[in-house]
């Protein structure tokens, strides 16, 4: 029977206290903080981060499909899931798909993965969900929203969390929406959305799944469900008939409403604490609702070294600067930098390099054993060995999962950056090999020669409609 085999999550390093946003707009208060993806992150890069966390003990080549759920996909035409799958080093023979446009897209992706595994057409499916929705400046959404991601690996061997059943409702009740050419999420009057939508439809789905499985609210160790904010979230718990201690913290005060990713992030947080035999209820919301019942098995013990939600909550830095948030989201027109215009990103070059550059492959020389990268303007693929000069005698060698130490660095104030200075580094990898990368999620003061770093998939720039992804390094914080 299909179930969850592994889980992972990702929360951006930067957290913006809501009081900082309030202060910028001359408002009182502001409760908690919200996670803010850096300018070099988006749902694709965050999905890769959560996926890497999830696949710590799995061979990426054993996965048959990647389902990516988001309402803020960087591309409208280009399969976002395949960018994620390529970075994660999945095979070419995979059935990737984007699940989009709806806050419950992640639970739909999860159920689709379960169905495919149960049907036997796919053995192993990675579901990722990430979102970074934008609320218009000074509005409530701006404060309520947060950025984050989660990933679940579905399979039918060594299942840690079984799926006992589910119930789905689709209802074209619209309390929030965004048209194809709009930047900010719109809302109808809150009372309508609550009375006819959020307080009714998820409760109906939850009740129906309980009825179907002959369960009652007291059968659940934890209940994980979407909520637009903390107050409305606890109202829904009461509506389903749950006691406060059964309700998994929805992360709204400390991460924010991460949209489509929120249900899976709350679920991952619950699984981090779960023990064998626990029954968990997951309820999503968005033009309908999916209610899913899980049962935790003994295998849950084997999933323990994830950063998940818990560790990611600890790896944080306060962003005490609202202007920086505006800049990172491109919400203020900036003085144009006096630098030469970029030539268009070459699709031919991207394609030629994608199987080496996107999963960050170098090579290992078969003759002298030297692991090596090649990083030039036009190629990531070495042809002649750095050390012994033999030609084309290599085996693939991946650097994305290797830790490294900073051999040299500088803080460049002249380079184009949305978070100056631009920290340039040279990294020596454990096990050999070197590369030069930008360093992200760093405090300039903490940088030193010899510091430990890990690799992270990021957006290098956006230009002429192309999101140009590659890898950066970041300080190792555990």
């Amino acid at each position, binding site marked *: 029977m299909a179930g969850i085999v592994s889980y992972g999550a990702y929360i951006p390093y930067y957290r913006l206290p809501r009081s900082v946003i309030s202060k910028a707009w001359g408002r009182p208060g502001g409760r908690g903080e919200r996670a803010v993806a850096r300018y070099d992150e988006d749902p694709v890069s965050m999905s890769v981060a959560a996926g890497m966390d999830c696949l710590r003990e799995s061979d990426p080549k054993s996965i048959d499909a990647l389902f990516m759920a988001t309402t803020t996909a960087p591309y409208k035409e280009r399969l976002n899931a395949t960018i994620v799958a390529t970075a994660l080093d999945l095979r070419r023979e995979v059935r990737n798909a984007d699940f989009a446009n709806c806050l419950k897209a992640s639970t739909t992706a999860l159920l689709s993965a379960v169905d495919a595994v149960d049907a036997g057409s796919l053995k192993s499916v990675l579901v990722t969900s990430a979102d970074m929705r934008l609320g218009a400046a000074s509005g409530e959404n701006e404060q309520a929203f947060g950025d984050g991601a989660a990933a679940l690996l579905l399979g039918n061997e060594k299942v840690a969390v079984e799926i006992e059943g589910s119930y789905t409702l689709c209802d074209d009740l619209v309390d929030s929406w965004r048209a194809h050419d709009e930047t900010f999420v719109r809302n109808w009057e809150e009372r309508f959305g609550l009375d006819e939508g959020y307080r009714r439809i998820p409760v109906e789905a939850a009740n129906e799944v309980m009825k179907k499985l002959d369960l009652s609210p007291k059968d659940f160790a934890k209940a994980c469900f979407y909520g637009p904010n903390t107050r409305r979230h606890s109202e829904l718990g009461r509506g389903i008939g749950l006691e406060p201690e059964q309700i998994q913290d929805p992360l709204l005060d400390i991460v924010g409403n991460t949209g489509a990713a929120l249900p899976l992030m709350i679920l991952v947080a619950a699984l981090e604490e779960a023990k064998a035999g626990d029954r968990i209820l997951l309820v999503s919301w968005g033009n309908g609702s999916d209610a899913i019942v899980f049962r935790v098995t003994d295998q849950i013990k084997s999933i323990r070294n994830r950063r998940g939600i818990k560790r990611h909550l600890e790896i944080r830095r306060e962003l005490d600067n609202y202007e920086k948030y505006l800049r990172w989201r491109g919400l203020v027109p900036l003085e144009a930098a006096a630098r030469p215009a970029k*030539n268009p*990103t070459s699709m031919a070059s991207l394609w030629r390099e994608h199987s080496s550059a996107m999963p960050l492959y170098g090579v290992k020389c078969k003759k002298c054993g030297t692991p090596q990268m090649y990083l030039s303007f036009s190629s990531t693929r070495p042809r002649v060995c750095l050390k012994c000069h033999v030609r084309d005698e290599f085996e693939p060698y991946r650097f994305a999962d290797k830790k490294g130490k900073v051999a*040299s*660095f500088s803080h460049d104030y002249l380079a184009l950056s949305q978070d100056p200075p631009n920290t340039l580094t040279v990294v020596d990898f454990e096990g050999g090999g070197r590369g030069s990368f930008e360093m992200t999620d760093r405090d300039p003061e903490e940088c030193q020669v010899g510091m430990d770093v890990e690799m992270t998939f990021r957006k290098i720039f956006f230009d002429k409609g192309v999101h140009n992804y590659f890898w950066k390094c970041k300080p190792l914080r555990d």
Partner: protein
Amino acid sequence: MPGSIKDRVAVVGMGCTKFGERWDASAVDLLVESAYEAFEDAGIEPEDIQAAWLGTTSSGSTGMTLSEPLRLNYIPITRVENACATGSDAFRNACYAVAAGIYEIVLAIGVEKLKDTGMSGLGGAQPNPSHVLTPEGTAPGRFAMLATTYFDRYGLSFEEGKHMIGRVSWKSHKNGALNSKAHFQREVPMETILNAPMIAWPLGLYDCCGVSDGSAAAIITTPEIAKGMRKDYITVKALQICAHPNDGNYNSDYDWTHVESTVRAAEAAYKEAGITNPREEISMAEVHDCFSITEAVTMEDLGFSERGKVLRDIEDGVFDLDGKLPVQPDGGLKCFGHPIGASGIRMIYEMYKQLQGKAGPRQIKNPKLGLTHNLGGSPDGCMIYVGIVGLPEA
């Protein structure tokens, strides 16, 4: 076995424009200005030039960039491009043509018009289609890493390191103040240098050379012909170009505290010129001080200072104008800026004037051999030129 250029060619005339933000001058104006100074200095007419080599990275693309403004009609002209070693490589190729006996009088000229781009820094177009791997990084960012690692490896505190590289710039500004052709002609106090805004930590504003327009030219012939033209001609002792494997960013053997291609080019140049103890035998040098840390490290790479110990020589004033081995007597890139194609020949121009005893207030006492050095690229991968010129008898 490679042969040697030593004393096989002579420089009989040179020209150099005023460097700076030459809003008044196009590349055409700059070429005419330096070339005609060189023609006049050599006592020849443009029609005497049999072949020419033009060095420019972005101010033109063919030999016609030179033939058109100078009306050097129907002679062979080659445009040379080799990053910051462009001017020097034009000079080198011109020398080889004379040494080969193919031509008797040739022109090597470099030019760059950088200030028409509307932006500071090297504002040329980016090479190739922007690629997934092109990280946002500037020249200061790359060279700053040399400083970070040098300070770390040799145990220099930030203050010690900053003072060391600051003094490099302080010295060059002092020399530039004596040079009417320099872009910057003012001394700069140490305090100003040390407290300047960061460009790429740990390099501040005064650790970086300027960007300017300029041109420089040399007339090259055989020593035999030179003797009949003037008494104070100079001869070429060594010409070396070294292409780095460009692997410092992914070869962990590279230590980021030196530039290996400078070491290799210098070794070859000393061998070619018959020099065994450069610190004692070289009278003066113009090196590629694109950044102050580059000059500091280059002193070690050229064998002027012991490895890891350049701080002492810099602070002791060894490379000052009145020191044991003056470096950047004309003010260097620091004061001239760096019109890329012109810089290498501008350096040779200063050596030429010094060897002739015509360097005015900057005159070094009895120089015999002068070394020039260019670094095109960044520490992890660069084209290096090391050349030596001197008195015919040296």
